[in-house]
């Protein structure tokens, strides 16, 4: 074959499995072929197609930051055929990966700015990559604030890292759970993310907002950000449209004339405002 097969996955070995929440796991993956590992690079915001041979492929962001070398991580919820098979894999098992695909969070353009991360549920993973990337280059950014909410306390992912961010003096972390989702010893907030955001009322001055979450959370968070003075070009999100090929051919992720897999998954609200609301 003269042209490299764009559908052939690289084998990757699972080197760590972390239980994050009921049905949610993180896999740490290392390339089996050291030459592939050597030349592999990616940037915050990019995604990949993860395969279980004989079961299929699923699309997830790369949840670990490019500043941590030698491995990538993905976090997924067990939902269908592929993620059920993935959940059945252990440390030492081999799965497939192709990527990185898609565009990036322009974090180099954000030097000197304050960053406000707003995430809901299983949408923290795409943001975790950016958060760690910026924390690993901490002196380049201003204030870093994180607002993270989940349905219940159990559903919060990356619990150890939340504890670490919460204890750092250079991060302002707020966690919240939906009303009814709290436990007796819950020390965080209770309320939906947009409500808590309104109460926190962070300043929009020199600040970039990064928002990832379920569609309903994004929909209700945007007006709050607007009220706080965030302009559409200072608000970033990543779209979660379903994908198969990842390389701009299969048509599944199309929103208007945009291919989410090529032009995204990272978009500003200003860009989203020019697209049909089919995401």
């Amino acid at each position, binding site marked *: 074959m003269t*042209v490299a097969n764009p559908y052939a996955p690289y084998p990757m070995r699972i080197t760590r499995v972390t239980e994050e929440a009921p049905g949610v796991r993180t896999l740490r993956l290392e390339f089996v072929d050291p030459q592939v590992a050597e030349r592999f690079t990616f940037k915050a915001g990019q995604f990949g197609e993860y395969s279980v041979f*004989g079961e299929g492929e699923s699309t997830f962001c790369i949840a670990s930051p490019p500043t941590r070398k030698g491995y990538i991580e993905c976090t997924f919820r067990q939902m269908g055929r592929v993620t059920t098979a993935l959940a059945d894999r252990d440390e030492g098992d081999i799965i497939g990966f192709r990527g990185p695909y898609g565009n990036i969070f322009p974090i180099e353009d954000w030097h000197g700015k304050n960053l406000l991360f707003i995430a809901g549920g299983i949408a923290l993973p795409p943001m975790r990559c950016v958060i760690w990337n910026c924390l690993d280059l901490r002196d380049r950014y201003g204030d870093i604030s994180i607002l993270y909410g989940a349905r219940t306390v159990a559903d919060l992912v990356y619990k150890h890292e939340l504890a670490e961010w919460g204890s750092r003096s250079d991060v302002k972390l707020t966690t919240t759970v939906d009303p009814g989702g709290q436990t007796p010893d819950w020390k965080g907030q209770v309320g939906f993310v947009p409500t808590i955001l309104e109460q926190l009322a962070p300043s929009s001055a020199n600040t970039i907002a990064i928002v990832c979450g379920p569609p309903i959370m994004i929909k209700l968070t945007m007006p709050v950000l607007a009220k706080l003075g965030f302009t559409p070009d200072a608000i970033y999100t990543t779209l979660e449209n379903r994908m198969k090929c990842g390389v701009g051919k299969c048509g*599944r992720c199309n929103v208007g004339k945009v291919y989410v897999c090529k032009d995204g998954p990272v978009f500003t609200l200003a860009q989203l405002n020019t697209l049909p609301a089919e995401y």
Partner: protein
Amino acid sequence: MNPGSELRILRTEALGELFSRLTASGHRLLAPVRRDGRVEFAEVSSPQEVALDYIQTTTSAKAAVFPRYEPLLRFRLRGKAADVQELPPDTRPTVLFGVHPCDAASLATLKAVFTWDSPDPYFETRLQQLTVVGLSCTRGDAYCFCTSVGGAPGDTRGSDVLLTPLDDDRFLVEILTEKGRTLAGAAPQLFAPANGEQKENRLAKITPRFGVEQVTSRLPKLFDRTEVWVEQSLRCLGCGACAFVCPTCSCFDIQDERQRYDSVRLRCWDSCGFKLFTLHASGHNPRARQSERWRQRVMHKFSYQPERLGVLGCVGCGRCSRACPVDMNLAEHVQALAEMSV
């Protein structure tokens, strides 16, 4: 006539010799064949099998470059481990014989989709190996609307050689490309010099129903007219037959098919008309209603693709409307959109 083309005369009785030469040199021949009351493209070895008097095949010729399903990888499973084998693209030289100008024109749309950003060796290898022998239309039917979307019954685009039947015994041959010259060179004695024969009076008359420009310029403004899309798609079943028979529909799925320890990863045709096409694992669906999926189909073909890839996603073959079980007619609907005030 195409100014750069070479004109020849080919006698219908010479097709047998031409087919023999081509198969002897390792070519696969695909041609329209009448089976069970339908005409479909199929592999043939002699002209007796070929039905050249057809108006339209039920499914398009796109399978020659983009098969209904195509194996990409093979996995031999050993417990949770697997041996991964890349399955190479099909490299057989193929002659697509007797394809109408609409299908020939569709190859440009498919090529735009499969190559606009990154290479696709499966599609590109098939296309490189393909020689297209087009067949002008001497008849059309009420479903044909090629002349509304930039095509014509004698259009040469996409063909390497175009045949126009002059009478029962002879074709006027336009040799259009290097591939076409190579094909004719396989049996040069069969291609006699032309002597002023013209194809124009042999061609079907297809009256244009709308102008492409009218449609593409109006569609962005019609996007939010929900009532228009709901009304047009009220009876749509979401069966996907339109995409299945369409020569330019190229959306696909990738699936693993497994039998015990042997598994194939394949890509297969899919359709934006299916609810599952965009359904998220969470249950959220960006295009949850059939009317939104109908709008996507029309917008994609007549607005998004022209704007993004510079190609129209429709060649006016009319297959979608012939195949629709509830008689939705694309040309009628697009004509209505073209005439709508915005």
